[in-house]
C-alpha cells in the first residue's frame, strides 16, 4: 500500500512538468506552421499584386479605312507586302489632324503597337470582303501607353527620364477623353509566343514547350522508374552490386540539376546529334533528373506493402510475377504516383539544365512538335525577368502565376488519380 502511494505521488509530481512540455511542443509546432503560412501568404500576395495587371491590356479605338489601292496596289492583295502599317498610321493621324511635323508624327505613331497592323492583316485574311470599307477597330496600344494607363509612369518626373513625352501623354489623355482608350482582357498573353514587344509577348510558346517536355519526361521516367524499382525490390539478388546501385541512385537524386544539363548536351546533342533547344532533348534531360526520385519513391511504396499479402498470394500458388502484378503494384501505385508527381513538379520548375541544351534562345513561334525549338516556362520567366522594359516586370509575375497554375493542375490530377486507386486495407 505504501509503495503504491509513493508511485502515485511520483507520477503526479511529474504531471505538471509533462503538461508544460506538451504545451510548449504544441506552441512551437503552431508557430512554425504560422511562419510557413505567413511566408506563403506574402509570396502569393506580392505575386498577385505584381502580376494581376498583366492580365489586362490597353487598347485604342481607331477608325481605319481599308483602302483598296493601298493594300492591293496592282489589283491583287498580297498579305505579305500590303502596307497595313500605313493604314494604322493614317487612322491615328486622322485623330490628330493638327500634328503635321515629321518628328511629331513619328512620336504619335509610337502610341500604337505594331500588333495593330498584325490585327488588321488577320482581319483582312479572314474576310477579304472588308476591303474598301472603314472599320472602327480596337487595336493594342504600345506598352508605354499601357504602362501610363496602369499608372506606372509618373508625369511629374522630369520628361527626359520618361519613356513618354509630355506631348504624347497629352494625346493619350485626349484619346481617353474621346472614349477611345480602354483596358481589356489581355488575350495575347495566352495566345502568343515570346516577342520583343512586351504588349505582344505571351506564354503560349513556353507553356506548350513545358507541356511537350513533361510529356516526354513522364512517358519515359514513370515506366522506367517503376520497372527499375520493381526489379531492385522484387527480383534482384542482394549482392555488392545491388548495394552499389542503390547507393548510386540515392546519390543521383542529390546531384545538382545543371550537371544533368551538361550530360544532356554531351550525350543527346553532341553525340546523338539531336536538335538543340528541342523539347525532346529537354524531356530526356528531365527524365534523367526525375528517374532517381521516382525509383526511390516507388521502392519505398513497394516496401510498404505488407509481407502478409505477398505470403497470402504465394501461399495459394501465385508466381513472383503474379504477386507483383496482382498485389504489390496496385497497393504501391498511390505511393508511386506521389513520387512521380514530386518528380514532375521538380522537372516543371527546372531551368538550369535547360540553359545548357539551348532552350534559353529567343523563340517567337509556338512549337508544333517535339523537335521544334522551344523554351520552357521557368526559362521564359528568367528571360522576361532579365528584360529592361517596365512592362516585362508584370509579365514575369504573370508567367509565374501561370507556372503555379500549371503545377496546381498537375497536383490536382495526381490527387484525383490517387483517390481512385487507393483501397481500404
Amino acid at each position: 500500500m505504501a509503495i503504491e502511494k509513493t508511485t502515485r505521488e511520483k507520477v503526479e509530481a511529474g504531471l505538471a512538468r509533462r503538461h508544460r512540455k506538451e504545451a510548449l511542443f504544441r506552441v512551437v509546432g503552431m508557430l512554425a506552421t504560422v511562419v510557413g503560412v505567413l511566408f506563403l501568404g506574402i509570396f502569393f500576395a506580392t505575386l498577385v499584386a505584381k502580376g494581376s495587371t498583366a492580365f489586362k491590356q490597353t487598347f485604342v479605338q481607331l477608325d481605319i479605312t481599308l483602302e483598296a489601292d493601298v493594300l492591293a496596289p496592282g489589283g491583287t492583295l498580297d498579305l505579305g507586302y500590303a502596307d497595313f502599317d500605313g493604314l494604322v498610321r493614317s487612322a491615328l493621324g486622322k485623330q490628330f489632324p493638327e500634328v503635321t511635323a515629321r518628328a511629331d508624327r513619328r512620336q504619335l505613331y509610337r502610341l500604337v503597337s505594331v500588333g495593330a497592323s498584325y490585327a488588321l492583316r488577320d482581319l483582312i485574311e479572314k474576310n477579304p470582303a472588308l476591303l474598301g470599307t472603314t472599320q472602327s477597330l480596337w487595336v493594342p496600344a504600345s506598352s508605354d501607353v499601357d504602362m501610363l494607363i496602369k499608372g506606372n509612369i509618373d508625369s511629374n518626373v522630369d520628361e527626359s527620364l520618361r519613356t513618354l513625352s509630355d506631348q504624347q501623354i497629352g494625346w493619350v489623355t485626349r484619346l481617353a477623353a474621346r472614349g477611345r482608350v480602354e483596358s481589356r482582357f489581355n488575350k495575347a498573353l495566352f495566345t502568343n509566343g515570346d516577342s520583343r514587344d512586351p504588349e505582344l509577348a505571351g506564354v503560349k510558346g513556353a507553356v506548350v514547350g513545358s507541356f511537350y517536355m513533361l510529356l516526354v519526361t513522364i512517358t519515359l521516367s514513370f515506366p522506367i522508374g517503376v520497372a527499375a524499382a520493381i526489379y531492385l525490390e522484387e527480383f534482384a539478388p542482394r549482392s555488392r552490386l545491388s548495394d552499389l546501385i542503390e547507393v548510386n541512385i540515392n546519390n543521383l537524386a542529390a546531384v545538382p540539376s545543371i550537371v544533368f544539363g551538361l550530360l544532356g548536351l554531351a550525350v543527346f546533342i553532341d553525340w546523338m546529334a539531336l536538335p538543340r533547344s528541342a523539347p525532346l532533348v529537354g524531356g530526356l534531360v528531365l527524365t534523367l533528373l526525375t528517374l532517381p526520385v521516382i525509383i526511390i519513391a516507388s521502392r519505398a511504396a513497394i516496401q510498404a506493402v505488407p509481407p502478409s499479402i505477398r505470403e497470402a498470394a504465394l501461399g495459394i500458388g501465385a508466381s513472383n510475377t503474379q504477386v507483383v502484378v496482382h498485389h504489390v503494384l496496385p497497393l504501391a501505385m498511390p505511393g508511386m504516383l506521389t513520387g512521380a508527381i514530386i518528380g514532375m513538379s521538380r522537372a516543371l520548375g527546372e531551368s538550369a539544365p535547360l540553359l545548357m541544351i539551348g532552350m534559353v534562345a529567343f523563340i517567337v513561334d509556338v512549337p508544333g512538335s517535339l523537335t521544334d525549338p522551344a523554351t520552357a516556362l521557368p526559362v521564359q520567366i528568367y528571360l522576361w525577368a532579365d528584360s529592361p522594359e517596365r512592362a516585362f516586370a508584370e509579365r514575369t509575375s504573370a508567367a509565374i502565376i501561370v507556372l503555379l497554375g500549371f503545377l496546381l493542375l498537375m497536383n490536382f490530377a495526381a490527387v484525383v488519380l490517387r483517390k481512385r486507386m487507393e483501397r481500404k486495407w
Partner: protein
Amino acid sequence: MTTMTESITDNPPPQAPVPNDGRQRDRAEGIVLSEYPRQETELGGKTIGKISCENPFMVVEDVNVYYGDNHAIRNVSLEIAKKEVIALIGPSGCGKSTFLRCLNRMNDSIESARVTGKIMLDGQDIYAKEQDPVALRARVGMVFQKPNPFPKSVYDNVAYGPRIHGLAGDRAELDAIVHSSLERAGLLKEVKDRLDEPGTSLSGGQQQRLCIARTIAVNPEIILMDEPCSALDPIATARIEDLMDELCEDYAIVIVTHSMQQAARVSRRVAYFHLGLLVEVDETNKIFTNPQHKLTEDYITGRIG
C-alpha cells in the same frame, strides 16, 4: 451457437493437466531451456514414437533447415497420411513454422534459408529441380497466423486461386467454386449478400474463414495451418476447430498450435518439437496420456512453455 459450445466441451483432452493457453505462451517466450542439459535435448537425432503411418501421402526424410548459421531444423523425419490431422506443438522458436513452411516450399522466398533432405509428396520429391513451387502450392495450401485477406472483395479473394490456376472454364463455374468454397468454410451464410464488400471489412474470425475458403478454392490435397486461431477469440476459434473436423474428411491438415486443448480436440497425431528436433510423435491420445520423453511430458504438463 450450440454446436460451438458443444465442440468446446466435447471430447475433453484425456486427463491433460493443461493450464490455459495464454499463460503457456507467456512462459514459452521466456522458456528456461538452459535448465535442460544439452545432452538431453540433443537426443542423438532420434525421434521417439511412431514417425511412420499407414498409406503415407507426404514423407519427410532427414530434413535440415539452416538460416545462415542457425540450424533451425535438425534431421527431422515424419510421415503424413491422407485425410489426417497432425498437430505440431512445442515452445516458441523450436522450428514449427519453419518445418511447416518446408512442406510447401514457402522458405524459398527467404534468402538465408537452406533446406536439405528429402520431402516426397505422393512419391514425388517436392524439392526436385523440375518441381515448380507454384504447382506445389496449388496442392499444398497454407493458412497463416494472422488473417490476411487481399484488399479485394470477398468474391475476388476466393476466386483468386481458381483464376490464376485457370480452374474455372467460365463465370458460372467460377461462381460455383466460390460458393462451394465459402459454404465449406462455413462462411456463405454470413457473406452471401456481401460478396462485393472488401474482405478486410469482415471480423477477424470471418477473415480467417475467408482465408480458409480461399485456400480450399484451389482444392489442395494438404492444408498447412500456422497457429490459425492465435489471433481469434474463443468463439471464432471454436468455429474454426469445427471446420477442421469437417475439412479433414477431404484434406490432410498439418496444424501448428500453442493450445494443448486444440491439439487434443482436432488432431489424430501430435508431433512435439524442441530446439529444431522432432522429439516425439504419436497418436494424440498416447502423447497426452502417456508421453515417453521427459521433455514432452514437461511441455504438456506446462512445466516448459
